[in-house]
């Protein structure tokens, strides 16, 4: 794991935590602290904090889309007016990605 990028994350619950850890490992990163784990409402309330931290280090927010939006970008627009991007960390040499993982019913 030495040398790989430490990636923090925030999730809704402990199952999502397992998923995000696996995702980070699969991508060659190293899972850092995983925050939240107390439901979607809390995750949304604390999102500005995570977004703030994401200006200084890589983060993943994993959240169920449910029926809140058609896909990830409009949801993001609704939730965060100024999402952190890779431009905040030109030194980090990584690309900010906002994407969607299809659920079982989609």
């Amino acid at each position: 794991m030495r040398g790989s990028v430490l990636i923090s994350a925030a999730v809704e619950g402990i199952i999502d935590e397992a998923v995000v850890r696996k995702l980070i490992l699969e991508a060659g990163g190293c899972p850092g602290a995983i925050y939240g784990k107390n439901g979607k409402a809390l995750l949304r309330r604390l999102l500005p904090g995570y977004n703030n931290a994401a200006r200084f280090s890589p983060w993943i927010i994993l959240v169920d889309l449910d029926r809140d939006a058609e896909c990830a970008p409009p949801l993001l627009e609704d939730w965060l007016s100024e999402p952190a991007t890779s431009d905040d960390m030109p030194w980090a040499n990584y690309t900010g990605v906002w994407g969607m993982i299809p659920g079982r019913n989609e």
Partner: protein
Amino acid sequence: MHLSNWKNFAGVDVAIQDRLFLVGPNASGKSNFLDVFRFLRDLAASGGGFQESISGRTGVTSIRCLAARRISDVEIHVELKDPDQTSRWEYEIGFNQDTQRRAVVRKERVLRNGKILLERPNDEDRNDPARLTQTYLEQVNVNRPFRDLATFFDSIHYLHIVPQLVREPDRSVGRHNDPFGGDFLEQIAKAPDRKRNTRLRRIKEALRVAVPQLQEIELWRDARGAPHLRGRYQHWRPQGSWQTEKQFSDGTLRLMGLLWAAMEGGGPLLLEEPELSLHPEIVRVLPQMFARVQRLTGRQIFTSTHSPDLLRDDGIGLDEVLLFTPESEGTRVAPAESDKDVQPLLQGGLSLADIVIPKTRPEKVEQLTLFGDA
């Protein structure tokens, strides 16, 4: 405080504030960190001393960090300041074991305001190596130039009340200042009347917040003369009913012990998980209570905790929280302020508890849910 090879820690170098909250996974070394202070107390305490302090911890090999490599001496180096900032003390001790597995002092230094008062091994030690089985700190005939330091170490107090030991003091017969509360009732009984009554009155006032039915607390002796704490609880009978410590709840007893110790002056008060058995709303106000006690007594308070409620207090500074992170080469200890994520997360509205508890999550904790599977 600087440590080398002490138990979980290959190396530690941290500033010690007046109030410290130690946060980390189970078995990451929070208690072993507090044990450094207990070790210094044991060195300086009457009836203590170097050999007793080591044998009480089952020998040098049990103390030495498993990650210790070529230089295997265990070292503790502490710096202290008088509250009025007039003196700055340093105490440094390094030890190991000899070929007969006997604990020996490798180094002992005392400095006051940068001036060396003691530096060992000295010529006398070289002429008679058996002298290195004792520290100068523990010897009244040689510690006079730094007696203040020894007295300070002796006043360090560790508290981790086990309610059942308070209720059954016979289990701890002969113990003095038992950190687990075995002689708690005896300590209360031995306090001068006025001091005891004042403290019990203050404890009653504080406890009435947590246990509103409690109307009175007093020391009471049974027919054999054994001391007991008893409290009068509000009841449908006009006079209420008296109950002794045998009937007090675990939370009530632990809170009583905590409040009693908090009112004593002296060196650092070391607390293990003071949140145990207490309602979260009471736990939330403990940091404020500690701060208030400090203003009154000047006492430092260091506490280990797993409680998000305890860390929810806005008054806790980032330099007051020490994070314990187990790594392959021993546990790393660092103040929360040194973590680059903490500041932006706080600014974004997270509480200290929201931030530090996930950081100290044990790895693979989810495996516990599978407990019992073949």
